């Protein structure tokens, strides 16, 4: 253990700690804000740690008109989205992972290109179309556009997940008498289940966080982010802080649960091959 080595390690830890604090402190601060008594938020000079923590701000937020309803809407839309997304995307992911077929690369390229579409380009024309289809201002309508936004990720993620399940196992099941579908349902699916659950949570987070399309496609049936952004100019600071805190809560929880799968989602496409 030379002097240089120790110096190097110290520097690395100092840099890493600084960056970690940069990431963590804002999250801590919104937490403090959400539990600061309301009138203390408007004091000058304001102390960084409030005199006491209170549930007042959160209670005000949850009691405000439309919040609980939009909260429930958000959950419904997110659950619909993850159902649609996996139902549509997982079979495609399985096909890309298992079969070599004509047009496979073209399909993968097409999926990647759809990721580059600006949300506005989908949401604005769909608002017009949805009025005609009777889907405007409905939760299913919002869930459908969220599905469109999550689908490229879902296909890429599930491709990675099914590639991680050895093909040999399915083939063995088939030689032992399983049908093609039976081999999938009894062998591949159970092995892929944790990965699929992670993909489902990731899809949930995409939907839970999405604001542009949700705000444009709804009037009365708003999701939480849509409710917050459409009332933002008129709402007091404490409402906004509590809203921000509430929005990140499930997202952080889910990201923690699926942390091992992060690379399937973002790095996976490169790491795969």
């Amino acid at each position, binding site marked *: 253990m030379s002097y240089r080595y120790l110096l190097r390690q110290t520097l690395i830890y100092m840099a890493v700690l600084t960056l970690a604090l940069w990431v963590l402190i804002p999250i801590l601060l919104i937490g403090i804000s959400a539990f600061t008594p309301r009138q203390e938020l408007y004091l000058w000079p304001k102390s960084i740690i409030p005199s006491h923590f209170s549930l007042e701000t959160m209670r005000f937020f949850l009691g405000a008109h439309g919040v609980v309803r939009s909260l429930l809407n958000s959950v419904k839309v997110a659950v619909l989205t993850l159902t649609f997304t996996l139902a549509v995307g997982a079979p495609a992911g399985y096909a890309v992972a298992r079969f070599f077929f004509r047009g496979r690369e073209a399909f993968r390229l097409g999926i990647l290109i759809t990721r580059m579409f600006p949300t506005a380009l989908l949401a604005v024309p769909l608002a017009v179309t949805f009025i005609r289809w009777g889907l405007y201002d409905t939760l299913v309508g919002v869930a459908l556009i969220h599905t469109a936004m999550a689908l490229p990720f879902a296909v890429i993620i599930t491709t990675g997940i099914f590639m991680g399940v050895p093909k040999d196992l399915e083939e063995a099941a088939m030689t032992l008498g399983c049908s093609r579908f039976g081999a999938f349902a009894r062998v591949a699916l159970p092995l892929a289940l944790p990965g699929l659950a992670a993909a489902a949570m990731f899809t949930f987070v995409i939907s839970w966080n999405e604001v542009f399309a949700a705000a*444009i496609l709804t009037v009365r049936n708003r999701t939480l982010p849509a409710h917050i952004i459409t009332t933002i100019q008129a709402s007091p600071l404490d409402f906004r802080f509590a809203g921000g805190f509430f929005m990140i809560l499930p997202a952080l929880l889910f990201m923690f649960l699926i942390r091992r799968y992060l690379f399937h989602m973002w790095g996976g496409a490169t790491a795969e091959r």
Partner: protein
Amino acid sequence: MNERLRKLLGTDTLLPYWLLLPTLIFIGVFFLMPLFKAVGLAFYGKDGFTLAYFEKMISDVRFFDALKFTFLFAITIVPLQVVTALAMALLLNSGFRGSRFFLYIFALPLGIADLAAGLIWLSIFTHRGFLNSILYALGIIDRPIHYLSYQNINYTFLSVVAAEHWRATAIVMVILVAGLQMISKDYLEAAEVLGARGWKKIWYVILPLLKPSLQSALIIRTIFALQTFAVVLALAGQITPVLAGEAYFWQFLYRNPHVASAYAVLLMVISIAMTWVYLRYLRSRTEVIRE
């Protein structure tokens, strides 16, 4: 699979296409159709083809500000993110004890919505927010500074940059960490045998090998940075207008899907142009597309 279903689906050669079908239909209805519809809305009025909506967009008082700020945000935020993410990835890659733990911490903002990030940083930059409180406690100021106001448009701009930098660096970091893991150990060992250590190794060996990942990160981040919307709205309101925000206002407040579509089409064209620029000037096409 029973016999009848098997006949219906054809043999295994057709199976993958059946599996792709739902996704293809979905892409057709929810990507291609809106794309054509948006172009239609932007260029066609009651009397056929027209450029009136684009003229209306360009003659809007906020249009050039929105264009300016959209580009300024992108060219400020993206390089900052790449540099920060590169530092994170290289630090994590140095393999110190607990690097896995820090990887998860660095990745946390991945789950945070742009709107939520805007609100988080609002608690810092607002008039009686944490930044002013800290500066006061340190005795640097005695009256709060209005960071988010028309009088301090530069501060407002920097506030949005700080929030976006904080929120979206994690995506770049994950892409770069994945890229670093793919670099073969042989290259690194060879480099060390030949005497490249420390900064030299990073500059002459690691960075060139990381180029495909850097390109992907640049493209993805630039495209999303051009769409910055909720962070701006939460922090700056209309002080620093952006293109995606204008599309939102034209659709949501002014109820004019034609002009809103014109903005959306403009955003798409800019995104395609930027991607083309990256592909043209950074090379190694296939790898970028892979990502």
